[in-house]
């Protein structure tokens, strides 16, 4: 292609410029030796939003940590047993009323009632 006779003066000027540049082969400014390291280039690019598009696989530790973070929320009171007590309608109504007024569960009312009863009577409770 280059040997064809040129009718376009611009092509001759371009060929001349390219030839002069080619003759300067080995010019230090075209060598790749002094270029910055890849990690430094990457860091500079990331500052202005030029980021990696490669997908990354999380390590085992990262995966485990993510799973642990997703554990469902759970809070326990320790009151997980059921008892059946025979009582009169009035006692049951009274228990309901106290629990409602104090905004406490009936199990908590029972615990506090027993603590007050023990204090009041002074009985000794083992354990």
């Amino acid at each position, binding site marked *: *292609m*280059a*040997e064809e006779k040129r009718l*376009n*003066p*611009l*092509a001759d*000027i*371009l*060929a001349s*410029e*390219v*030839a*002069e*540049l*080619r003759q300067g*082969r080995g010019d230090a*400014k*075209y060598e*790749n030796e*002094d*270029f*910055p390291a*890849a990690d*430094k*280039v*990457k860091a*500079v*690019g*990331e*500052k*202005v*939003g*030029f*980021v*990696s*598009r*490669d997908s990354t696989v999380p390590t085992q530790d990262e995966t485990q940590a993510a799973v642990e973070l997703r554990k469902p929320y759970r809070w326990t009171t320790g009151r997980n047993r059921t008892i059946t007590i025979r009582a009169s309608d009035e006692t049951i109504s009274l228990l309901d009323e106290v629990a409602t007024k104090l905004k406490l569960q009936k199990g908590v009312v029972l615990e506090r009632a027993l603590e007050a009863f023990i204090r009041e009577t002074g009985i000794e409770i083992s354990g």
Partner: protein
Amino acid sequence: MPVIVFASSKGGAGKSTSACLLASALANTGANVTVIDADPNKPLTRWASHAKLPDNLKVVTNGDESTILAEIKEAATNSEFVIVDLEGVASVTVSYAISRANLVVIPVQGSHLDAVEAAKAVRLVRNQEEAFERKIPFAILFTRTSPAIRGRTLASIEQTFKEAGYPVFTTQLLEREAFKAIFSCGKTLYQLTSSHSSNIEKAVQNSEQFALESIRIVRGLPVERPDSLGQGQHDEPNKEVVA
């Protein structure tokens, strides 16, 4: 030898077309040219697979961001010119390529969307210049401009770039049928005939003006107005396209 990188984080700005034109113009002078196609859409790889390229013009396909530096180094060792066509996103591949560039060409169509992305590329170039104390020549290239009308938006963008101190190519790549025919016909600009497209001669002149300006920037020479370089290269409006 020189590495010339085409960068803009906006797709469709004209990177692949202008890279292809520059590579063909340089190869036409007899120089050995390697094009690295680092666009995931592989437009130049596809083009090369259809085109019968001259022996001194080669297109290689970039693997991924981890290989681009090695590919540029190898191409620079084996070729007189390396042209890198980058993807239209802000990626680390762009950073890597710019770090090895002797010229960064930033194609821009006459739209503010393109201009904003061009500014990002300029910011990256300047950050690298500052961080590594290395001058990286760059210039904005207006592409697909109208041969007949200079719109207000384009004028506004040109003014903005001027005020920001961005160097701009005096040559603009006009909207030309011949530039499209390169890809649709699978040929270099120099292989096109009148059966493929009209106005090929003007398209060649337009392309070579751009190539000449690029070489002068790489060589650190002053860039003159295209119409001061001699006869025959003045870029007349592409009337045929307008019609």
